[in-house]
């Protein structure tokens, strides 16, 4: 049985709802100045991470860029710990020391949360290197945006992964814009997936607004990698509804374009699929949504009442000198 088939689709829909409600609430709390720094929302892209993670094991390695709230939530980090991190609290998933762009969760094999575009792609290759070095059958999933594919680190990393035949899936979440620069204005290729060909890495394209399509494609790739280690590349075509970050009104694209994608909403789509197949009623959906909203609201309360790290403790996090927590 494929790992993906073990995941209940209603549960995965529920996870997509949690991500969306979490991001909406984060947006609101950012505007209320409870959250500082930069804050990049995942709304619209939910099917990508939920689909991909539905296809892998809990002990596979996951690493991503700065639009990372959803990846932590999907990996099993609690909404409480995620919201507390945004609030900069000690109960946050990175103890309030990382913030929105640096979510980490060792226990759940979530390796960040990395904010320099493309710089985490070599790290992902190193994690895949360690898998092969130890003779394990894990796989590394490395998520990044379309903006990363023009960084040198990305190219060096792909070459290394191909050269050493490492078990890694490079998942490009192509949401069409690197900040405000469209793929057309940034990339010399007709399609992003062709980058992989240059490194002799098999590449595919998948519809990122369709949970099932993402899950099945990733399951197929991961299955092949577990049989014999190799890198693979997946261009996932998706769309973010919000601006690049909270401060971006996204004036570089039209309302019509946004509306077109909204009509293809990943949550609406999975809901329709499940409803059509008699696996979900409207009442059940409403209940899932209500539960997601409640979880997120409780997370805000948790974050609000959580303590901040005492200043003198910061010095304990410069060098590691002892037992891990």
């Amino acid at each position, binding site marked *: 049985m494929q790992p993906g088939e073990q995941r209940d689709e209603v549960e995965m829909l529920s996870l997509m709802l949690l991500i969306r409600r979490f991001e909406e609430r984060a947006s609101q709390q950012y505007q209320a100045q409870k959250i500082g720094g930069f804050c990049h929302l995942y709304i619209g892209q939910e099917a990508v991470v939920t689909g991909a993670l539905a296809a892998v094991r809990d002990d596979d*390695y996951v*690493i991503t860029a700065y639009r990372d709230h959803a990846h932590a939530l999907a990996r099993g980090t609690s909404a409480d710990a995620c919201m507390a991190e945004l609030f900069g609290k000690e109960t*946050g*998933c*990175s*103890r*309030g*020391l*990382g913030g929105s762009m*640096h979510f*980490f*969760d*060792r226990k759940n094999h979530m*390796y*960040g*949360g*990395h904010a*320099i575009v493309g*710089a*985490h*792609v*070599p*790290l*992902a*290759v*190193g*994690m*895949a*290197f*360690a*898998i092969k*070095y130890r003779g394990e059958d894990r796989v590394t999933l490395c998520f990044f945006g379309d903006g990363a594919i023009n960084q*040198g*680190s990305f190219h*060096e*990393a792909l*070459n*290394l992964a191909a*050269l*050493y035949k490492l078990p890694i899936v490079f998942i490009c979440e192509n949401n069409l814009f690197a900040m405000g620069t469209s793929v057309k204005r940034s990339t010399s290729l007709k399609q992003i997936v062709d980058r992989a060909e240059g490194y002799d890495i098999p590449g595919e394209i998948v519809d990122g607004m369709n949970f099932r399509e993402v899950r099945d494609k990733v399951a197929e790739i991961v299955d092949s990698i577990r049989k014999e280690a190799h890198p693979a590349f997946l261009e996932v075509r998706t769309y973010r509804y919000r601006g690049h970050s909270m401060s971006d009104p996204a004036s570089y694209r039209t309302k019509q374009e946004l509306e077109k994608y909204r009509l293809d909403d990943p949550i609406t789509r999975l809901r329709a699929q499940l409803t059509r197949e008699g696996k979900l009623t409207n009442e059940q959906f409403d209940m899932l949504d209500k539960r997601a909203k409640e979880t997120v609201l409780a997370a805000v309360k948790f974050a609000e009442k959580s303590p901040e790290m005492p200043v003198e403790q*910061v010095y*304990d*996090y*410069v*060098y*590691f*000198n002892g037992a*891990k*927590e």
Partner: protein
Amino acid sequence: MREITYRQALNEALAEELERDPNVFLMGEEVAEYHGAYKVSQGLLERFGPRRIIDTPISENGFAGLGIGAAMVGLRPIIEFMTFSFSLVAFDQVVNNAPNMFLMSGGQFNVPITFRGPNGPAHQLAATHSHATENFYASVPGLKVCAPATPSDAKGLLKTAVRDDNPVLVLEAELLYSSKGMVEPPDEELLIPLGKADVKREGTDVSIICYAQTVPLALKVAAQLEEENISAEIVDLRSIKPLDEQTVFDSVAKTHRVVIVEQDHPFCGVGAEICYRIQKNIFDALDAQILRVSQEDVPMPYNERLEKAVLPNADKLVTAVKQVCYA
């Protein structure tokens, strides 16, 4: 004790740590089949095989990052830069990823990695290949930086670096690879702690603070000064960060006069930090201003005569010592 070269000492350190811990691997340009651009990894491929001694393409940013990722999941990589001048291509990985990970993850991910290779000006390699990077890296919280000057220190510090749970830069000295020194026998574990300076020569009139390539220079100058009845104490820092300021202070409290001879550039150089700490902590012990001898503040010229002129040298050091001794 036996006499071996700095290069052999490093080679022994690598072999011993590879032997001791299966999580240790060596990766870099030309480290395996070519045996290292400076032959530091001679024989290691034959002994440990291609799984653990790994050649890379010319992709410093890529393989430095690979090492950091592997360290995050429990391996203990030794990443060789053919020279630290090339580490600048990987600056983002060394500065932004390796030292930040522990704090940024709230203490979940430490990065036990060693970056090593030759550092500092060698001989007529010109501006791009002559960087002394110690002051860049020592200014980054989360990194540790050492710069051994003798075969014994090179071996002991490299072994310690590999065992450290944090990113450590071992800045080797290209001009010293063939220099010889007495080192403990191979069956005796040689570990030298980071953050421990070594008084290489005792003296009473002036403290010369040095490290790496400036240590043999300082020792040579001390012998010369002896003939002029100036007794110089030579303090080899060995580690730039953590810095053993106590050994520096103890020496200055004894001699009351200080010259710092460093291989980096003067502006925000290692000596600037040491100067600050001395005047802040033991101002009253000083009988003269502190002087620094460093590279001149110019990119390295290729021309041999000009190169010599912009590097620290014996004449400059003697002049500085005489000035602080009012001799």
